């Protein structure tokens, strides 16, 4: 059964009600055994902690004193003495995480305790279904099912109860929950709670469509919002964004500084815990988080949620807004802050779709082979398996339903240390499993011990812990620290720190009170725009274009009237609508407004005034492709187009992408004409070209590193100690190079490619775009300045090469300069 309803509506208790009732009934009849009846799985440890406390209360109320129904918590934090206690006297209800559940399933002695499980409750299932953690969990659920003793009379499958927030399509998530053998009842009460979304923009008259923005104005308005409410929760999408916002917000509101805190996953657990506790007690006025408070734990009474960067998807916007007004009767309020005019259109579209409850469809990963490898080792720890029986079990998990026999056998061969030939040539190949034609099992002894320390699919990125005197503040990415030099000031936990030195994976810092940070800057948004949002934006662009073409844009009365029309269409204020309209008018003057059903490519020759060093040989040519398919699909498309261009013309071409398109920057001998578009944008052999474009890419290397860890090729924990990540990355890179050369079809390389293809670079979506657009018109339109809709791309493109002046300021100056030119150009005409 899948229950979809917003947070704070009591779905957890709805799920537990029946369970508690049944257990109470058993107790009353003296039939309550010392065994686990119910397992609750949550992606967040914190949720399980919360639930432990929250279950204790009703149990005390029902039974008074010491309740006969025992609840136990099992996570990575559970001490070994507690674990022994749990084993000797298992709780009736076990609260755990997917990783800990898999660990229990890997231990033979635990299996009898898991045979009588009647219910599995999966919380926040929407957060897991889409990624490898979910695929990992789905296999654990199948294995749990198989443990139930064969009893022809009483045999009932385990009831799986999924708890989900706003999610679509529900039936797909339902299948994920039950697997291919089960039926799922859907209970959708997600429209029951009132969620109010609205858009706010600090933009004034001059729209400023750029990836960065003038932070100060935004921060001041954010401070006003904080003052107007009791508790404000702010989402920024990135960790560094959360840090920077916290810092600046404290600067502009020093009187509230003590009640403003930062929260993200790289802060130390006790630091985070303290922020959560203070939030729950109502002591904080504002908490700025990356995405870390999107899910789960009860965060008390937040009265408004501000999304500083656009959430990039309708479901995410609703989920975030739902974090305020945390009970079923109160209204959830979410404000989308649009910091540039593109964001403004996007935010308006998000709000519109949110009201219509048109959610982004979730996409499940298909048969991740690294996850499979981990489970096979786990299964083999618990006993010997027949190959067929194991394959059938794996396929019963929905993400693995389409797993081919060959993939399955290849994973077994890899885990056995290599193919049959190698295994017969050497007595010892150090495989994880012992394999023959019929059966497999995990090698006993050290392999099993090592494995138990390396369960899980959350990839470890290179992290460096930050220490100020004797206190650990948190951790930052290794790559970030590598870009700093001693003396640089950066922000951690909302406070300025000066880097002293880095040693042994630790960054030693001193407080840098009153100093301005030298990094990090506002980060670009990393999440791709969802498909239905993109479609809505294309629709809107087309409508505005039609209005402008049929109207009198030179007349002020027409502009005023049309702004009202835009306001109605976007359901936003007239002032905002005016900004949007002005931008589209500018676009129409310099170029044309791209619309659905055709592909617009703008061609711009850059004098390179703002680029240092100047390009030798004069001008660079940019082609702006207006393909509104989201960042990750555009990246896939741009990779293929660049590859094809260099085949066609020789040399390298460079592309820069965002959610709305990509810009191709080329040398003089690479100029393209209309006749080149068909070969460049052909859907034929697109996937093959895409793979060819990936061969040398850092991205594939990066994903291989994850696959190598998840697929147990390299351990991240060894003899109970975490390896320094630098060493880990070092070896993963070399392995990658050797494999690519000698064993390009290795299962883990295949997995890295699949990951790139389906998740990080959406080649499937890009191909779909090309297929749909195959017979649609495409044109190259020369423009003599960068049109407003292309400006964000252009800005990202040249930002790296800018002069020393602050990039945000340069951008604003640059943009205003163009705007004036556009204005004066119209007047002259």
């Amino acid at each position, binding site marked *: 059964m899948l229950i979809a309803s917003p947070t704070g509506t009591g779905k957890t208790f709805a799920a537990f009600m029946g369970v508690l009732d049944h257990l109470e009934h058993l107790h009353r009849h003296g039939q309550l055994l010392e065994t686990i009846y119910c397992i609750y799985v949550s992606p967040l440890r914190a949720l399980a902690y919360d639930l432990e406390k929250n279950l204790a209360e009703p149990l005390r109320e029902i039974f008074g004193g010491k309740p006969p129904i025992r609840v136990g918590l099992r996570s990575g934090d559970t001490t070994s003495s507690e674990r022994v206690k749990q084993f000797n006297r298992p709780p009736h209800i076990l609260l755990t995480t997917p990783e800990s559940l898999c660990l229990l399933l890997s231990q033979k002695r635990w299996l009898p305790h898991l045979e009588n499980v009647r219910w599995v409750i999966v919380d926040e299932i929407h957060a897991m279904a889409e990624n490898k953690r979910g695929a990992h969990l789905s296999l654990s659920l199948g294995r749990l099912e198989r443990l139930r003793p064969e009893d022809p009379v009483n045999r009932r499958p385990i009831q799986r109860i999924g708890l989900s927030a706003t999610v679509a399509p529900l039936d797909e998530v339902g299948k994920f929950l039950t697997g291919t053998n089960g039926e799922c009842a859907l209970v959708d009460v997600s429209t029951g709670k009132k969620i109010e979304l609205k858009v706010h923009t600090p933009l004034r008259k001059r729209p400023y469509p750029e990836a960065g923005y003038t932070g100060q104005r935004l921060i001041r308005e954010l401070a006003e919002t904080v003052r107007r409410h009791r508790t404000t929760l702010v989402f920024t999408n990135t960790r560094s964004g959360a840090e920077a916002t916290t810092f600046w917000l404290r600067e502009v509101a020093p009187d509230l500084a003590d009640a403003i805190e930062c929260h993200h996953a790289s802060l130390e657990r006790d630091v985070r815990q303290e922020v959560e506790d203070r939030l729950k007690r109502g002591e904080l006025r504002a908490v700025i988080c990356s995405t870390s408070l999107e899910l789960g734990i009860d965060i008390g009474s937040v009265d408004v949620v501000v999304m500083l960067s656009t959430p990039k998807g309708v479901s995410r916007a609703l989920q975030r807004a739902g974090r305020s007004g945390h009970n079923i009767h109160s209204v959830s309020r979410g404000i989308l802050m649009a910091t540039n005019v593109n964001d403004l259109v996007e935010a308006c579209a998000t709000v519109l779709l949110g009201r219509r409850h048109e959610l982004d469809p979730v996409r499940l990963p298909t048969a991740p082979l690294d996850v499979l490898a981990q489970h096979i080792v786990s299964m083999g720890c618990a006993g010997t398996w027949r190959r067929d029986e194991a394959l059938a079990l794996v396929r019963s998990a929905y993400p693995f339903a389409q797993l081919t026999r060959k993939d399955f056998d290849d994973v077994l061969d*890899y*885990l056995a*240390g*290599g193919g049959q030939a*190698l295994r017969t040539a*050497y*007595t*010892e*190949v*150090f*495989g*994880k499993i012992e394999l023959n034609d019929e059966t497999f099992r995990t090698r006993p002894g*050290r*392999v099993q011990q*090592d494995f138990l320390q390396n369960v899980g699919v959350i990839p470890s990125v290179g992290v460096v812990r930050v220490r100020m005197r004797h206190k650990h503040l948190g951790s930052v990415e290794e790559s970030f620290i590598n870009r700093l030099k001693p003396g640089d000031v950066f922000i951690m936990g909302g406070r300025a720190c000066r880097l002293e030195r880095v040693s042994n994976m630790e960054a030693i810092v001193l407080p840098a009170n009153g100093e301005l940070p030298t990094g990090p800057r506002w980060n670009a948004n990393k999440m791709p725009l969802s498909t239905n949002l993109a479609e809505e934006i294309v629709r809107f662009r087309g409508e505005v274009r039609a209005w402008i073409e049929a109207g009198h844009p030179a007349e002020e009365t027409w502009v005023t009237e049309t702004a009202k029309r835009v306001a109605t269409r976007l359901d936003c204020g007239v002032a905002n609508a005016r900004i949007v309209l002005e931008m589209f008018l500018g676009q129409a003057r310099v170029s044309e407004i791209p619309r659905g059903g055709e592909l617009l490519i703008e061609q711009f020759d850059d004098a390179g005034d703002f680029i240092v060093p100047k390009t030798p040989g004069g001008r660079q040519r940019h082609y702006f492709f207006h393909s509104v398919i989201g960042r990750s699909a555009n990246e896939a498309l741009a990779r293929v187009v*660049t590859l094809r261009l260099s085949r066609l013309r020789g040399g*390298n071409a*460079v592309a820069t992408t965002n959610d709305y398109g990509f810009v191709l920057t080329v040398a003089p001998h690479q100029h393209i004409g209309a006749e080149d578009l068909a070969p460049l944008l052909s859907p034929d052999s697109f996937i093959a070209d895409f793979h060819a474009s990936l061969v*040398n*890419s*850092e991205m594939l290397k990066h994903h291989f590193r994850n696959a190598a860890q998840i697929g*147990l*090729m*390299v*351990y991240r924990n*060894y003899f109970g100690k975490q390896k320094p990540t630098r060493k880990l990355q*070092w*070896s993963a*890179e*070399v*392995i990658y*190079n*050797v*494999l690519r*050369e*000698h*064993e390009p079809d*290795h299962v883990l390389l295949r997995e890295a490619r699949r990951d790139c293809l389906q998740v990080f670079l959406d080649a499937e979506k890009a191909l779909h775009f090309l297929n749909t657009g195959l017979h649609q018109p495409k044109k190259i339109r020369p423009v003599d300045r960068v049109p407003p809709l292309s400006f964000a791309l252009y800005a990202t493109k040249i930002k790296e090469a800018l002069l020393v002046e602050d990039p945000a300021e340069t951008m604003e100056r640059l943009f205003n300069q163009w705007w004036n030119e556009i204005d004066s150009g119209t007047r002259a005409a």
Partner: protein
Amino acid sequence: MRSTAERGRLELRPGLWLDARRAVYLETEATIAVADPHLGYAWAQRHAGNLLPLADDRELEMNLAELLEDYAPRQVVVLGDFVHRAIALDGIRDQICRFIDTVEMRSRLVLLNGNHDRGLHEVLRQCARNVATAREMVCGEYTLLHGHEDVTCDRTVLMGHEHPVIALPDGTGGRVKCPCFLIGARTIVLPAHSPWAAGSDIRKRDFLSAVARRETFVRAIAVLGRKLLPVTLIDPA
């Protein structure tokens, strides 16, 4: 500086040839020097619990056979770290034997001690191979050694140990790491012969050995596939 047309070889000093197959050829002494083959790397990793692919042996052997064919040297000197770990495993013994046999069929092999070679004698004994070993050796105007121990000597040193790599722009905004020779006034560092080797960029200058830390390297010769590309590190002006 002479170099062959296809830039696979480059004569750094009279009689001192760098070869893109990660080797040095000393013409007068008819000697090939390679550094850090780290034989049995993948097996050693597997022994430690990492399930590395075993696909790399053949490349190393073919490389070696080609060098022997092209130069017909009097001797082949390995500048240390002949093996990654001297563990008594079939797979490692196999690789050692094949390497030794390939060389000794046409030439003579000398192994200089590296920090990874501890216990190598025992494994060589198990392999029933008798190979000359030494701490360092003089070869014409050069001293050949591994580089993990600090030494002072009057001749130019040819050493390994550092696994030097240099990151070069790949033309599409990314960077590629290439193994390289590192050239200083009194020291020449060879790239690792092992396909598994990777190291930190020489421009970061976090060298492992005292010998390399003392030296001022003016030039790197990057190995790009089968070509050599000289890169100036310090302008002579």
